[in-house]
């Protein structure tokens, strides 16, 4: 990696690292009141009555589904056949569908008083049958297509609880399986877990003088403005959404939540009174989006040489009680089926995915969306295939990887992989791990005793910077391929960038400033990046799908290039020089071959904004360019993770000895920020693979409702990662590929693969907790070790 000295100091560091960040929680407004939500203790129940008399007596305002304005509902739209649209009310109406769903909102002068008053809300529930799992215990019946729901459906519109079903199909799968040398089968269950950003969800809403202002820790301010307009009965033009500093998002905040809508509706009902809600950790674990609660039944066919000839199977994704806005209940199942086969060449593929509603918190986007689970599944299939064929697992992968000769490669789900650098990443990972030395130590321990070592691998393609042709989300009434960027030279010669994306800690103030400073020809310190305010920024979809560097970076580059052209053209007239001979370097206008600058950007800017008397014919005042960028397709990023783990046979505990990650980030804008993205996503991946698990009991109560039982990894649990890069420029203005999510995709696969390598046993369920690994080892001993 490049040394930190080559990267500029991050612009946001001083503010964020010294406690000077300005988060929604920091916002204090005159007359502000505070909101707490009364949440359902029942997973599935009819609401017989809500008695708020005691709460009103305690001096609180109370809102329920009966309150004026609250008759609306969030409804995630998609034109995809097989998708059932359902409603999510801002406050539960008629019945509750998961434990933690908001039933009433209580407003008081501070949060303490609000919580006191909330205890006086008396809700009478009539319990209904509860559905927790998205699949039957008797899996065979489901595989045969006989999905029969025997309990009360979560939504009447979907009597079988299936909100979405789709079959991906290419080639002749059954013929390929019949002709195969081996067909391996795996049944896999992955663990529900979530993003848990350090700052929970938060919002302040104020309706004043006909305008609604909503400060929200959202990743998607423009989308929020668009989506809530009709729901709160206002023109989109009368709404301003501001995302100030946000403490982590990971996709969890790329969702419009019922609490957001409720807050805006409350503000509208209380003109002039700002209302504030800051989620606490209990609420987050209970009611923010979780993900990766899946079951897969998969088969893979290989010819005698190890070539993958077919993959077929079924997937069930627990989408929880509601179809998440705006991404729909399809977000995980469609990603799971669409990218299962990842970087491996394949002609014959059939996979039926289902998004199944249950009485659990809604599932939504979380860093990696489904692929941490599907990469685990795919790599399990390859390890089983290698074992069945007696091949080295890495050799088998090399045979099947998309190579440089194959790109652009059309995957069986019609996505087009534009990178072929998997082999290169794998070579680099093997070199960094010193694979031969680890194998030698593994063999020595097998001979002489000692804790077993396993080597695990994961190879994946991260789909980043999705353009209109590969737009995030399933046929929603908008396409998320583009971003706007305005680059402006102020009258003092300083540059302002107004970007449509948002930052939750990714360092975009720094990277976009680098891009614009380089392209315009000004100093990095003279560029200021602003985002997150819909009144300030023209247009943007926000932060998700590893899109900021590719799309916002691309838009910034296009705008900056054009602005530089405008500056140079004006300077040529002002200084009576030939534009072709002029250069703009560090804010100074220079003529080729001449030692002294002939002018500077501040002078050009002053002429442009203030001194129209100096403006030549044909020049309008102002130095300001807005450009949109849409990459149309996207940029796949190749990634390989390779790790050596040591197993404690007595406890089933796993110690990570070494963990290497090599990714193709394309051209790297800022090495330190890329490193941080990769390490952070690896840590979240390790958390999901080894520790994090949201568990519900049979009544639908969350058993892991605090951080005592929901095990977030801490610094002590996370190893030093060895991060390497392959820099193959992508086909976009900056040559970049997204790096936000890749790290999360590998760890579950790596751990399962390493356990398989060490012991020859198959880990079919996540997380790889000590008791699970211990049981696996015990069963293997009883059945005879390999």
């Amino acid at each position, binding site marked *: 990696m490049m040394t930190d000295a080559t990267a500029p100091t991050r612009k946001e560091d001083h503010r964020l690292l010294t406690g000077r960040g300005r988060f929604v929680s920091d916002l204090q407004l005159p007359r502000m009141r505070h909101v707490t939500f009364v949440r359902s203790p029942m997973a599935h129940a009819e609401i017989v009555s809500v008695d708020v008399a005691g709460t009103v007596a305690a001096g609180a305002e109370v809102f329920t589904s009966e309150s004026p304005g609250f008759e609306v509902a969030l409804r995630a739209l998609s034109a995809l056949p097989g998708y059932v649209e359902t409603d999510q009310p801002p406050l539960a109406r008629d019945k509750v569908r998961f434990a933690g769903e908001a039933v009433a909102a209580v407003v008081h002068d501070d*949060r*303490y008083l609000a*919580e*006191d008053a909330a*205890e006086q809300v008396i809700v009478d529930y009539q319990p209904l049958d509860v559905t927790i799992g998205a699949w039957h215990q008797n899996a065979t019946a489901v595989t045969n297509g006989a999905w029969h729901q025997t309990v009360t459906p979560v939504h009447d519109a979907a009597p079988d609880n299936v909100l979405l079903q789709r079959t991906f199909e290419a080639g002749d799968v059954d013929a390929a399986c019949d002709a195969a040398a081996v067909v391996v089968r795996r049944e896999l269950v992955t663990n529900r877990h979530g993003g848990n950003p350090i700052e929970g969800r938060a919002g302040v809403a104020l309706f004043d003088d006909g305008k609604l202002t909503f400060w929200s820790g959202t990743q998607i301010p423009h989308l929020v403005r668009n989506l809530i307009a009709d729901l709160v009965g206002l023109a989109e033009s009368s709404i301003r959404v501001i995302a100030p500093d946000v403490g982590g998002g990971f996709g969890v905040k790329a969702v419009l939540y019922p609490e957001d809508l409720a807050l805006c509706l409350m503000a509208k009902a209380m003109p002039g009174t700002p209302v504030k809600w800051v989620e*606490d*950790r*209990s609420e987050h674990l209970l009611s923010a989006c979780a993900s990766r609660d899946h079951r897969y039944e998969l088969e893979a066919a290989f010819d005698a040489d190890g070539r993958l000839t077919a993959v077929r199977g079924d997937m069930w994704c627990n989408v929880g009680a509601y179809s998440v806005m705006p991404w729909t209940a399809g977000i995980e199942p469609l990603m799971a089926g669409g990218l299962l086969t990842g970087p491996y060449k394949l002609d014959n593929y059939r996979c039926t995915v289902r998004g199944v509603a249950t009485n659990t918190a809604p599932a939504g986007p979380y860093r990696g969306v489904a692929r941490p689970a599907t990469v685990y599944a795919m790599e399990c299939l390859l390890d089983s295939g290698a074992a069945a064929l007696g091949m080295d697992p890495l050799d088998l992968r090399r045979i099947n990887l998309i190579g440089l000769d194959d790109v652009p490669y059309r995957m069986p789900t019609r996505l087009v992989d534009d990178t072929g650098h998997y082999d290169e990443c794998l070579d680099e990972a093997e070199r960094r791990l010193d694979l031969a030395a680890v194998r030698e130590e593994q063999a020595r321990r097998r001979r002489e005793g000692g804790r077993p070592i396993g080597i695990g691998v994961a190879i994946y393609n991260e789909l980043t910077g999705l353009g209109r042709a590969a737009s995030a989300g399933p046929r929603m009434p908008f396409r998320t391929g583009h971003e706007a960027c305005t680059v402006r030279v102020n009258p003092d010669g300083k540059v302002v960038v107004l970007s449509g994306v948002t930052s939750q800690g990714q360092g975009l103030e720094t990277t976009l400033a680098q891009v614009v400073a380089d392209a315009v020809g000004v100093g990095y310190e003279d560029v200021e990046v602003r985002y997150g305010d819909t009144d300030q920024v023209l247009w943007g979809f926000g932060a998700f799908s590893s899109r900021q560097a590719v799309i916002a970076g691309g838009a910034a580059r296009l705008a900056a290039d054009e602005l530089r052209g405008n500056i140079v053209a004006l300077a040529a007239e002002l200084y009576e020089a030939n534009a072709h001979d002029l250069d703009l370097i560090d804010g100074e206008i220079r003529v080729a071959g001449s030692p002294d600058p002939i002018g500077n950007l501040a002078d050009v800017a002053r002429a442009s904004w203030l001194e129209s008397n100096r403006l030549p014919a044909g020049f309008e005042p102002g130095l300001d360019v807005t450009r949109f960028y849409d990459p149309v397709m996207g940029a796949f990023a190749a990634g390989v993770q390779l790790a050596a783990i040591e197993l404690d046979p*007595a*406890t*089933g505990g796993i110690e990570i000895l070494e963990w290497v990650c090599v990714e193709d980030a394309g051209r790297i804008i800022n090495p330190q920020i890329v490193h941080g993205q990769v390490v952070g996503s690896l840590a979240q991946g390790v958390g999901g693979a080894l*520790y994090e*698990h949201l*568990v519900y009991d049979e009544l639908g109560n969350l*058993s*892991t409702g*605090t951080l*005592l*039982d929901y*095990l977030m*990894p*801490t610094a*002590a*649990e996370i190893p030093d990662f060895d991060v390497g890069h392959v820099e193959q420029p992508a086909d976009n203005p900056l040559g970049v590929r997204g790096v936000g999510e890749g790290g999360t995709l590998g760890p579950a696969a790596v751990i399962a693969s390493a356990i398989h390598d060490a012991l020859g046993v198959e880990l079919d369920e996540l997380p790889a*907790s*000590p*008791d699970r690994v*211990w*049981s696996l080892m015990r069963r293997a001993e009883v059945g005879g070790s390999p």
Partner: protein
Amino acid sequence: MKPAPFELVRPATVDDAVAVLADPAADAKPLAGGQSLVPLLAMRLATPATLVDLNTIGSLTGIDDTADERVRFGAMTRQSTLVRSRRHGLVAHASAWIGHTAIRSRGTIGGSVAHADPSAELPSVAVACDGVIGVAGPDGSRTIAAVDLFESMLETTLRSDEIITEVTLRRPQRWGFAEFARRDGDFALVLAVIAEVADGWRVVLGGVGPTPWRCRDAERLLDDSATDMSGLDEAILDAVADTVETFDDVHASAEYRRAMAAEFTARALADMADREPGDA
């Protein structure tokens, strides 16, 4: 996650504290380091009308040796002080396993014992070292043997108007400690304490049941072994595995806990074998 309203009382003496606790109208609970009580308040799982802050009572701190070779810890001795003080090797070692620095800086020995979490380190250490818990109430002071204090999960035989004033522990001649937790600083999934005290051996396991559990069969094996412990390990582990009564939860099955009870007893024995006599 905001506590229900409560009055905060900051007494200067134990008698003042007990007077408030004894007043039924006050509906009071004592506040020591607050590392367990404050989260319970925040989640409104505990809603006392009054909190009696023990942090202002000077007489509740201090560590001294008693005439009968024991060490007396004032109830408000911070866990960070237990780690730093070398007065009792096992207490210092086990306390380092409690939570993280910030938690140990507030948490107290008396608070941990009173909270009676079977997965916490100090309750098991107190049982292993024949702990005697000094208690003050409206009728004066009394003592409770640690083994009689822990009644069930988070329940003790303390009356609601009593506070712990001190914890007095024997110094073991030899001891071993081993703990298994999912993450650094977590409560134990299983912990094992082995100690040779004045009149015999103590084998205590935490995290396996509702209270710190003494494996009497294992203790007998050790007591009967005179000085020669060789070849005994296997029998001790069998005794633990055969007699422990344990449970399932989200982190582990009962079967796994049983196996870990034996495994960490073995590791505590190994830990003891590795220690210099001076560690006592």
